[in-house]
């Protein structure tokens, strides 16, 4: 197993996976929050637009989105963000991942809002808080706590889904795994175990932290 680490840049590939994860998680959080605000806003059009986005994106395979980033944006439109081929692919993979997971972030945030009982908003209004105050002091803190578990699950899914970036030629773990398999078919099982355990190591802490947080910050009702 040591051979694999000395012959191939396994840690480097996992590094790219982590970079992809962090960047697209930030992107997905920003886009997802915007869409979630649209989804809960009282403006009918924004509401419908948000719903359309979520329904379209959530029902499209991620592989298709990533392939579209490649074929549609890079090849067809020639939209390049960097002259460096590898960096360009990385950026477009990040964009695809962020747009895809934003739909799930939106749903996670919305389900957090839905955990707040109507009585909380009514109580906030009846003691004379303004709209801003009731959001800030009463509703959002509870909504955020309710969203921790689904957000954590989305982050775990995102970490694993970065492997799809191999479809656009990003040098992350799944791509390296294919190369290793072709070079060293005798080490098939160790290759799988190294990659698989790497992902367990990446995703396990996220699950533990979100579980701990959601329990620690749970709202007693």
């Amino acid at each position, binding site marked *: 197993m040591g051979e694999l680490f000395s012959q191939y840049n396994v840690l480097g590939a996992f590094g790219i996976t982590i970079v992809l994860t962090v960047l697209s998680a930030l992107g997905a959080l920003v886009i997802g929050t915007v869409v979630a605000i649209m989804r809960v806003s009282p403006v009918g059009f924004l509401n419908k637009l948000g719903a359309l986005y979520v329904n379209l994106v*959530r*029902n499209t*395979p991620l*592989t298709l989105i990533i392939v579209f980033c490649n*074929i549609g944006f890079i090849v*067809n439109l020639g939209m390049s963000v960097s002259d460096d081929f590898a960096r360009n692919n990385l950026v477009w993979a990040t964009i695809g991942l962020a747009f895809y997971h934003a739909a799930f972030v939106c749903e996670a945030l919305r389900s957090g809002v839905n955990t707040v009982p109507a009585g909380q908003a009514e109580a906030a209004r009846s003691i004379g808080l303004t709209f801003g105050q009731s959001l800030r002091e009463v509703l959002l803190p509870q909504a955020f706590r309710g969203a921790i578990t689904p957000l954590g699950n989305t982050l775990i899914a995102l970490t694993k889904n970065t492997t799809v970036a191999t479809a656009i030629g990003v040098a992350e773990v799944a791509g390296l795994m294919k190369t290793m398999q072709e070079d060293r078919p005798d080490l*098939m099982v160790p290759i*799988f175990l190294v990659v698989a355990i790497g992902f367990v190591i990446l995703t396990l802490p996220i699950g533990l932290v979100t579980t701990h947080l959601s*329990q620690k910050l749970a709202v007693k009702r």
Partner: protein
Amino acid sequence: MSSVLFDIPGPKARARHRLIMIVSVVLTLLALAWAVSRFAAKGNLEAAKWTPFLTGDIWINYLIPGLINTLKAAAISVVLAGAFGLFFGIGRLSDNAVIRWISTVIVEFFRSVPVLVMMVAAFGLFSFNRVFEASINPLAAVITGLTLYNGSVVAELLRSGVGGLPSGQSEAGLAIGLTRSQTLRSILLPQAITAMLPALVSQLVVILKDTALGAIITYPELLTTFSQIGSYKSNPVPALIVIALIFIAINYLLTSAAAKIEARLRDKGRATIAKGTIGPPNRVDLEPVEEALIAADESVLHERYRTPDK
């Protein structure tokens, strides 16, 4: 519209909402127009690139065979994942610590490994060891990956479905003299599976979407056909859009079916598990119930045999 957050708008708020709406409609149209013009500049809107989809040729030779392969892989995976999930889900609820522990490790492991990694690994293993005929390897690899991952999710759903039932259910089962496994089989599991139904249907969407990963390991599914159509009619972008619409249509139907089932169950007053909330481990703990029963028994016995002495 979330009534929790907002009051019913008055005249001022309605005017403000109208203004926001107009601004956002204009912005959306501008963005759309910009995107369409970019794609039109590269000739993607030419009629010649879209008319092939109105002919039978493309559908009969490419799209429909691709869709059939996608559905075939998904259907086989659904059946196998159901069996896998039932087996290890019950394993995780077992009294036997060893079985429980092994099931937990297997389920948690396959849940945290990316589906693509499992597909690539299975593909490598199958083709290196010549397990199947070369032509079946991609399909077998897709099914293996989907089964291991989704089976683990089903096992987890099963466990949280059982864990989410009121404790009175298992207590009642034990109280009428059923054994623990009888209680699980005839009281807890049927209710848990009903509660899981919406989440299970949503999982079908995940399976169907993940068959598209097969494109990466050369399984000739729906997404793969885009490159064939694209090089045949030199219209890769329209082909991708049509394929996306097929996926969206099927998955949208499944998603709405899940929502409908959930609404119906809720109307009947049944519990459901929300998707995406498979949380911390919470095994149904029958221990305290049994201890209480035994303790109660003993105190009765003590009473009975002690009183005559006095």
